[in-house]
């Protein structure tokens, strides 16, 4: 008797859980479905925003061909990939170097440096954006992708702490043994610590690769040539530039967003495990 009641409540709570998950899942997936639907929607050009199923609705790849033929999306895509790859390589190298130094080496001013970095990271980035713009201008670098790469990776040192938290957990015994065997510090860094830090490296690479795809404020300030845009600014301008641009371009925008989203989803899903490890190791150790 008791067991049946227990199993009934158990079943009931399972059903409730499933119901909740389904409701929430739908809530989360619906906007994405809407995005994908709009990307494939080739409607008569009116009423794109405010009708879900207009008469004469057609689905197809029309928006994608418009995206790649009528806009400079392919150039923007190439720009973004270039910027993302370079800034991701630089950022990762910088973060690894700084966090290794702060975690494994002992030197004067180490603690103060850590606090200063923490404090510096608290300034809202675009407060200094205008100044950055003029510094770049003085260097003759405005309107170039190189400037973007430098801006994205220039302050990489500020986000050292997740990676440092990870390095802190690597046992010291191994590197001491290696040093007794005559290894130099660079060798320890290269041969012992780095191979062990794979999850955190993947995490850093992933986050720093994705961020140029999402930023549009800095691009907006630094770049003014249309052919130097990255995808985010290009897409943003596509529906925000002129008065009617939204009505005309919304489906194309969604197509572009679908392409960008697709790239990030692929990356993300393939490395999700590392991402979680990275996030949690950062959370546990601060």
């Amino acid at each position, binding site marked *: 008797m008791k067991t049946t009641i227990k199993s009934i409540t158990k079943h009931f709570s399972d059903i409730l*859980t499933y119901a909740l*998950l389904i409701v*929430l899942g739908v809530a*989360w997936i619906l*906007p*994405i479905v*809407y*995005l994908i639907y709009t990307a494939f929607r080739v409607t008569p050009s009116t009423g794109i*925003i*405010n009708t879900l199923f207009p008469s004469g609705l057609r689905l197809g790849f029309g928006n994608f061909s418009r995206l790649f033929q009528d806009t400079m999306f392919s150039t923007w895509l190439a720009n973004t990939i270039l910027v993302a790859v370079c800034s991701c390589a630089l950022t990762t190298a910088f973060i690894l170097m700084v966090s*290794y130094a702060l975690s494994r*080496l002992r*030197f004067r001013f180490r603690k103060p*440096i850590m*606090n200063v*970095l*923490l*404090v*510096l990271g*608290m*300034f809202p980035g*675009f*407060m*200094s*954006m205008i*100044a*950055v713009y*003029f510094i770049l201008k003085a260097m003759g670098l405005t309107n170039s992708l190189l400037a973007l790469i*430098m*801006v994205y990776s*220039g*302050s990489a*040192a*500020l986000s050292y702490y997740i990676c440092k*938290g990870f390095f*802190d*957990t*690597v*046992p010291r015994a191994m590197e001491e043994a290696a040093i007794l065997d005559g290894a*130099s*510090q*660079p060798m320890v860094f290269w041969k012992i610590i780095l191979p062990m830090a794979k999850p955190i490296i993947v995490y850093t690479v992933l986050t720093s690769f994705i961020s140029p795809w*999402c930023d549009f404020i800095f691009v907006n300030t630094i770049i003014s040539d249309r052919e130097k845009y990255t995808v985010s600014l290009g897409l943003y301008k596509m*529906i*925000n530039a002129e008065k009617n641009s939204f009505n005309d371009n919304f489906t194309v*925008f*969604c197509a572009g*967003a679908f392409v960008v*989203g697709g790239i*990030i*989803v692929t990356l*993300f*899903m393939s490395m*999700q495990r590392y991402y*979680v490890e990275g*996030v*949690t190791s*950062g*959370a546990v150790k*601060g």
Partner: protein
Amino acid sequence: MVLERVSVKMKKRIRKNGLIHAFKNGSYATRLSFFIMGFGQITRGQIAKGVFYMLIEGIFLVYLILFGGRYIGHLFSGDLGRRLTGEMWNEELQIFEKIKGDNSFLILLYGVVSIVLIALFLLVWATNVKGNYENDIRVQKGESLTTFREDVRTLLNEKFYIPLLALPFIGLLVFTVMPLVFMLLIAFTNYDYAHTPPGKLFDWVGFSNFKTMFSLSGGTSGFALVFLRVLLWTFVWAFFATFTNYFLGLIIALLINKKGIRLKVLWRTLFVMAIAVPQFVTLLLMQKILDGDGILNKILGTNILWLSDQRNFALLPRLMIILVNIWIGVPHSLLLCSGILLNIPTDYYEAAKIDGASAPKIFMNITLPYMLHITAPYLITQFVGNINNFNVIWLLTGGGPVDNVYYGGGTQAQSTDLLVTWLYRLTTDQNPKYNVASVIGIIIFVICATLSLITFNKTSAAKSEEAFQ
């Protein structure tokens, strides 16, 4: 090992006695190296090092004379340029000549750059003097001087942190520190739309911008009260944005992790998909969906201004912002929480079960305290991040709706503005007020820095960084 200890002792002695001591007791070479860098090193055979120091001094002096000195002078004489750009009559040629006047902006910028360079130079200069004094002591003791190769080896071993930190720190200096100092200084000038170089110049005004910000004149829409309103909303927003995301993420993680629930991977993937859509895409999409003419109103057959209803202090837009933010943020905290939930030691749960604790009790007494303990630093980072969460507000409402009763006046703030979006509007508006924006930036900084310094140094992480080694 012994040698190392000697050198440590020596360094301590040098550090304690400082440069003055070095000047008093050093050899003539050391004393001369106060003025001619690298001199001592060259006379003692450390040619490469000496030439390096001399080169740096040379380049620096050339820079200072040809370029930097002028700007430093401007900065310390307390004026940021007087001559206006304009036209002047040239008697000889009988034409108007264009005159390139001063540019306060560039004077300030290059002044800051020069100060940073001087600081760097002083650092190199001090190392040079110390190196010489170290040589003096070595000679006194009859030890041999370090060769170039030994110096390199030191850089790769005991001083490995120098090559590691050098490049990242240069990046930091150029792209964070210099712009920052510059923007801090702007807060003490009258740089606004009426004083925009090169047409017009700006100048130092002391603390008057801070006075403006905190003065009560102007009534309900004066700076002080508007500032308080924006600040209050910034905190309310940061609080709700952080905790709604966190707890919803935790709850969904618990639901998915619940024993007997199938298709765990599918559920998780469903939510994680939302992370992969770039934030600005989601936000623009949501903005269009929630627009007055948007699809949501069409489907519901209503006419609700989801993002621009002014009534009740713009309550509806504020709620919608938090709601949309939930959509964006929960998947992140879901990933984090489900990662940590799996790590909770199972013996806690087993012990609780033996004691006959109910599920809610287990949650309140085991799961929640454990999660909060572990994720405390994450929560603080999130909170600070939300104080600075520009994208969500800017792309959804743009800070709006405009409310002339409570926000208008010259403050240019709007109903759902956070401090950061207000700052951004002040710098990009048609009538920019860079000086006021800088004041706001300083305030944001003080808030965030205090919050994070306290918590990071108090959490166990900072104390026990060697606990796991």
